[in-house]
C-alpha cells in the first residue's frame, strides 16, 4: 500500500526528518486558514496515490491565502489521473538551494536492501538514470551490519556533499532506513530532498510503500490508513471494493463482454490471452489465488455477474491445492441463489474444470444441471461463441 504524501511525511517527522510546515485539509476554506497561519507563500498539493502528480497539475503554488483558496478549490473534488482528490496538503514553500534524491528500497534480484542517492533530485529516479546515470549512487546494505553511520556518510560523500551537509544527509539516509525496517516498507523515498537556505535538508515530497504482506505486524497503522479511504460510488469501483472486501486476490475490469474467473494468476493470464487470441473481448479478469474456498468463488461470481457488461462468464479451474469438489459447491451454491440476485438476465456461464478431485467436482455440477469442459480451448471457444451471439 502506498501512503499518501501527508501520511508519509508524518512518519518522516516522527523519525527526525525535517518536513515543510503544513496541514492536510479537505475544503478551500480550511486551506485559507492554514495558508494564513503559515504566513508565507505555500504549495497546494493534491493527495493522491498515483505517480506523476506534478506533471498532471496536482501541485500548485500560491503567493497569498486567497490564491491558496482558489487553487484548493480547483483541485479538490476533481480527479487526477482518474483518482478522486478529496484532500490537499497546504504547506510552506521552501526556498531551495539544491534538490537531492534519497531513498531506500528492496532489490528483489539481489535480495538485499539498497540505498539510492543522487544530487539530481526533483525528477523521478528513472529520469535521473536516463539522463545522469553516473550521478546515481546505489549501495547494497550488508545484512550483517545494517546501514552503518559510516556507510551512510560514505554515500553522502559520493553524492558530493561535504562537512555539515554531508553529516545531515547521512542522518536522513539513516532515518529513511529505519522507517523501511520499522514499518516493513518496500520503498521509502525523499524526493526532492531539498537543501534549504539554512543548510538543513527538508523532505519536500515523501513516498512510502508498505508491504501488504506485513500488515499483520502493523495493524494500528494500517487500520488508521484505511479509514481515510472513502467507498467509491461508481459501479466499477464499487465492484472492486466488494472484491477487495471478499478477499478476492485480483479483480480487474478491462472493457469487453466476457468475464473470466480463474483459480490462479498464471492460468488466469493464459485464459485472458487465449480468449483474446480467439477474438473474445474480456471485461473482467478475476483470479482466486489457487486456494480452496467455495465462498470465494461464489462471491466472485456474484460480483462479476453484477456487471451488466458481462454476457458470458468463463470459469477456468485447474486445481492443485484448489479442490474441485469445493469449487463445484461454490458454483452450485451461487446458482441456487441466483434467482434472488440481480445480474444481467441471461448471462451465460461456461465452466472448465480439471485437477484435484475433478470427478467429484464434475458430478456435483452435473447434478445441478451444469455442464463442464475438461479442455481449456473448448471452453474458450464456447465462451467466445456465446459472447458473439450475445
Amino acid at each position, binding site marked *: 500500500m502506498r501512503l499518501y504524501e501527508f501520511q508519509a511525511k508524518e512518519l518522516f517527522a516522527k523519525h527526525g526528518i525535517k518536513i515543510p510546515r503544513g496541514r492536510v485539509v479537505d475544503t478551500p476554506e480550511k486551506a485559507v486558514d492554514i495558508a494564513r497561519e503559515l504566513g508565507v507563500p505555500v504549495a497546494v498539493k493534491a493527495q493522491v496515490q498515483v505517480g506523476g502528480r506534478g506533471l498532471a497539475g496536482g501541485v500548485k503554488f500560491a503567493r497569498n491565502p486567497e490564491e491558496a483558496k482558489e487553487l484548493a478549490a480547483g483541485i479538490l473534488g476533481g480527479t487526477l489521473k482518474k483518482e478522486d482528490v478529496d484532500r490537499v496538503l497546504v504547506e510552506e514553500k521552501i526556498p531551495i538551494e539544491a534538490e537531492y534524491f534519497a531513498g531506500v528500497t*528492496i532489490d*528483489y*534480484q539481489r*535480495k*538485499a*536492501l539498497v540505498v539510492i542517492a543522487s544530487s539530481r533530485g526533483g525528477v523521478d529516479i*528513472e529520469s535521473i538514470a536516463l539522463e545522469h546515470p553516473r550521478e546515481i549512487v546505489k549501495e547494497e546494505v550488508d*545484512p550483517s551490519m545494517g546501514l552503518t553511520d559510516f556507510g551512510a556518510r560514505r554515500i553522502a560523500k559520493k553524492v558530493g556533499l561535504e562537512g555539515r551537509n554531508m553529516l545531515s544527509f547521512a542522518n536522513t539516509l539513516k532515518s529513511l532506513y529505519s522507517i523501511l*525496517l520499522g514499518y*516493513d516498507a*518496500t520503498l521509502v523515498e525523499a524526493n526532492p530532498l531539498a537543501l534549504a537556505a539554512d543548510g538543513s535538508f527538508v523532505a519536500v515530497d515523501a513516498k512510502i510503500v508498505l*508491504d*501488504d*504482506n*506485513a500488515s*499483520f*505486524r502493523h495493524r494500528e497503522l494500517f487500520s488508521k490508513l484505511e479509514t481515510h479511504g472513502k467507498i467509491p460510488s461508481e459501479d466499477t469501483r464499487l465492484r472492486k471494493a466488494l472484491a477487495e472486501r471478499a478477499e478476492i*486476490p*485480483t479483480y*480487474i475490469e*478491462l472493457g469487453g463482454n466476457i468475464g473470466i474467473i*480463474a*483459480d*490462479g*494468476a*498464471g*492460468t*488466469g*493470464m*493464459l485464459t*485472458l*490471452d*487465449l480468449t*483474446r*487470441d480467439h477474438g473474445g473481448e*474480456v471485461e473482467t*479478469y478475476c*483470479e482466486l*489465488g*489457487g*486456494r*480452496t474456498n467455495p465462498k470465494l468463488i461464489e462471491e466472485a461470481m456474484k460480483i462479476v455477474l453484477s456487471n451488466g457488461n458481462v454476457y458470458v462468464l468463463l470459469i477456468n479451474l*485447474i*486445481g*492443485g*491445492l484448489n*479442490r474441485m469438489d469445493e469449487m463445484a459447491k461454490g458454483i452450485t451454491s451461487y446458482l441456487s441463489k441466483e434467482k434472488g440476485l440481480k445480474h444481467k438476465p441471461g448471462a451465460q456461464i461456461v465452466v472448465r474444470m*480439471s*485437477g*484435484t478431485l*475433478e470427478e467429484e467436482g464434475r458430478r456435483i455440477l452435473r447434478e445441478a444441471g451444469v455442464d463442464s469442459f475438461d479442455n*481449456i*480451448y473448448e471452453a474458450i471457444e464456447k465462451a467466445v461463441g456465446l459472447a458473439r451471439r450475445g
Partner: protein
Amino acid sequence: MCILVDRDTRVIVQGITGTVGSFQTKVMLDYGTKVVAGVTPGKGGQEVHGVPVYDLVEDAVEENGGDAVISFVPGPFAADAALEDIEAGLGLVVITAEGVPLQDIMRVMNLAAERDVSIIGPDTAGVISPGRCKLGVHPHRLFMEGGIGVISKSGALSYEVSKALTESGLGQSTVVGIGGGPMWGLAQVDALEMFEGDIETEGIVLLGEIGGTMEEEAAEYIREHVSKPVVALIVGRHAPEGERMGHAGAIIQHGRGLADGKIRALRGTGVHVVKGPREIPTVMKSLL
C-alpha cells in the same frame, strides 16, 4: 534421473495438522512420496495418516532423517518456519505460502544462500518428478513420467501444460514451480542449469509471465549454456499496464516487464515461443 527430488527423497511436512497440510500429505503418501515426519508446534506426539508429528523440525529430522521439506505454514509465519528448516540442516525447502512479508523472505534467502540450501517459492505449487516423488500440491493425474523438464512461475499453468504434454504422450522428468515472486529462491536460470545437466531430460518447457526480467536472464543463459531444445510460453500478453495480475511479480510498470520483450529475447536465442499450451507438445516433438 530427475532434478531436485527422487524416489528416495525423505520429506518432512511443515504444518501437517492443518486442513490443507493433512489433505496434501495424504495425497503425497498415496503418490508414493516418502513423507517421514510432520511438524506442527504444539501438536508433537500426534500422528497424521500414520506420519509422526513433532513440535520442532530438528527433532523430526533427528528421529527420521530428512532431505526436503514442504511447508504449508501461512504467510505471516512462513519465513520463521523456513529459517527453522535451514537451521535443522534440510537442503531443499518448498514454501507454498502466499503473502510472506518481503523483508522476512529476504532474510530467509540470504541465510539459505549462505548455507547452500535451495528454496523453492514462496507462493509455489512445489516440485513433482512424475512416478517418483511429489513434493507439492499438483493434481498428479495430469502428469506422466518422461523426458520433458518443465519450469513455471505459476502452479496452475504448469498443470495445464503438463496435461497437454501427457495427453500427447510426452511425459515429464520434473516439473518445478518456482513461485509467483517478486523474490524467488530457485530461479528459471537455476532450473535450466539442472535440466541441462540431467541425462533423462530431453527437452525443456519454460513457462514465464509478465513482470521483472527473469525471462530475459533465462534467454541470456540459454544462449550460452543450454543445448537441449527449449519451448517457451509467456502469459500476460494481453495484460493491462500497471495492474498486478495476481502474482506479486506479474505487473507491467512504465512499459517494462512486457510479454513482447521477453518473447523477443527468447526467440533471439533460438527458443520456440508459442501462444498456448496445445502447441507445446507439437513443437517439442518436432525438436526432439
